[in-house]
């Protein structure tokens, strides 16, 4: 069994590796199986450009927040991976696999996908109502299957008990992604926001969708040279 990036010799219990699916900026993602279940291994290999102490701190921080968030989301049946196993020292996390492709690809392949963007907006609201901010909402971090079911991944920058600012930032990060990578959808951001507001449960003690959107608009005004 060989592992990408210096994991040779390390054994992960019950894990049978298949192929490297994706080499992202943060982690190498490998598919395989764990106790017969279809699974994904996310290995956060050390980033050589970061000084080791900072690298270790960030890797640990992000792995543990991801594990905690996934555990919490499982309790609420939120469409996100199940946590199987993790190793903070060696920097990996083993999670369930979802059969789907990034929304990024889906939006590029079928240019009539506004409905999917709206659905994504709704899903984000649901996440926020569970008291979690994602921290890195891009169209690569949400998977979509052939029935248009969405599945949110990559919670390394997430926060439990976020402040209003973090919820607003989630929308801002997605706004930049939609306007820079999916500029063919002219009103993508508005559609996403309409989905976000529509699924507001209006429960007391929860930061309302309109509060988050108005903070988002404030943050949007902070970037350089906005219209």
């Amino acid at each position, binding site marked *: 069994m060989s592992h990408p990036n210096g994991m040779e010799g390390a054994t992960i219990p019950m894990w049978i590796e298949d192929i490297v699916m994706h*080499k*992202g*900026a*943060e982690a190498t993602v490998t598919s395989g199986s764990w106790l017969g279940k279809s699974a994904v291994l996310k290995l956060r290999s050390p*980033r*050589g*450009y*970061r*000084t*080791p*102490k*900072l690298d270790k*701190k*960030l890797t640990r921080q992000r792995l543990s927040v991801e594990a905690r968030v996934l555990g919490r989301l499982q309790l609420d049946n939120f469409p996100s991976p199940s946590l199987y196993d993790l190793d903070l020292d060696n920097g990996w996390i083993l999670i369930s696999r979802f059969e789907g492709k990034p929304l*990024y690809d889906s939006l590029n392949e079928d240019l009539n996908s506004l409905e999917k963007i709206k659905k994504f907006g709704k899903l984000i609201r649901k996440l926020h109502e569970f008291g979690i901010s994602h*921290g*890195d*909402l*891009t169209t*690569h971090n949400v998977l979509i299957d052939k029935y248009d079911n969405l599945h949110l991944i990559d919670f390394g*920058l997430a926060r439990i008990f976020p402040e209003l600012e973090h919820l607003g*930032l*989630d929308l*801002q*990060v997605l706004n*930049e*992604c939609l*306007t*820079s*990578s999916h*500029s*063919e959808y002219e009103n993508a951001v508005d559609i996403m926001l309409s989905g976000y507001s529509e699924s507001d449960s209006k429960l007391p003690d929860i930061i309302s969708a309109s509060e988050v959107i108005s903070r988002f608009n404030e*943050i949007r005004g*902070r*970037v*350089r*040279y*906005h*219209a």
Partner: protein
Amino acid sequence: MSNFTTVENKRLHVYRKELDFKGIPLSGFMGGVVLGIESTAHTLSFGMVDLDGKVSDSYSNLFRPEEGGIHPREAADYHCSQVSNLLNGVTNSEMFKQNNVEAIAFSQGPGLGPCLRVGASIARTLSKSWDIPLIGVNHCIAHIEIGRNQTGCIDPVLLYVSGGNTQVIAKSREKYRVMGETLDIGIGNMLDKFARNQGLPFPGGPKIEKLASEFTNNLDYEDKLIDLPYGVQGMDMGFSGMLTAAQRRVLAGDSLESISWSLQEHAFASCIEVAERAMAHTGKTELLLGGGVACNSRIREMAQIMCEERGATAYWPEKKFCIDNGTMIAELGRLLHNVGFKTSLEDSSINPMLRTDHTKVIWD
């Protein structure tokens, strides 16, 4: 002329007087050049690029505030006082003497209004008195194009790190788009502010780099990293929290060397991380550094390591083309001139908020 402000008219008048000494350059020489004028903030600079893309050095002057940060109007007044000197340098240069100036390019934005107006007024004046086309260009995109000219990269992700700007830019569907950026202050601004508060004069970046590199002479320096906030929010960054925390550590008695090093490590790592994420997101395999902070050898080293680890290539131009310079404006002007683009006098107003994705990329 209707949208010139009164201030611009006054300034224009001053320049006319100053520029009368030269008039139209002699014709009948071999090639052509585009003259570029940069004046978005601290730097007033002139540079030339010939029609084949061969560049000249820039003739530049840097405004250094006596105390505090940049005051736009004071910078603009200072730039005005330097125009004759710099233009004399340009017009006495071999490249100028041996070529016809075919077009005048200037930074139309983004930047500080009063400073931008200085460059724009000189450009309009020269264009009118030499009767050659005027080309208004986007300052941020000029950083990309001089980088492409100098390094030969083709379709890079640009990590643009300067005093006022910290952006990750990539081309998609005929426009350069901002994939991520700072949500508070620019990285160079953060470094300058930190330096200024420690009594180090502007520009502070090189001084911090020196202190940081002195710190790395210590044997176990890597264990002495001071913990600072790490401001990455998805594709966006923030540096003000880092700055506040670093200043507190000064008060707490940590050495300036150790804080400078830790500050660089945290700030640069967040930029490189976002740049890497943009490369993963777009599938691009070239990284280009630009902006004054790209002169720092540690951020260059980090860019190199990151790219090597993911099988990509990092590029950066020489320092003189990382900082703001007139040559980069000339280079983007040349590319636009080649496809017949010109800016009419009516459309030549400056735009301090000019967006990167406002410009359609109509050149190769």
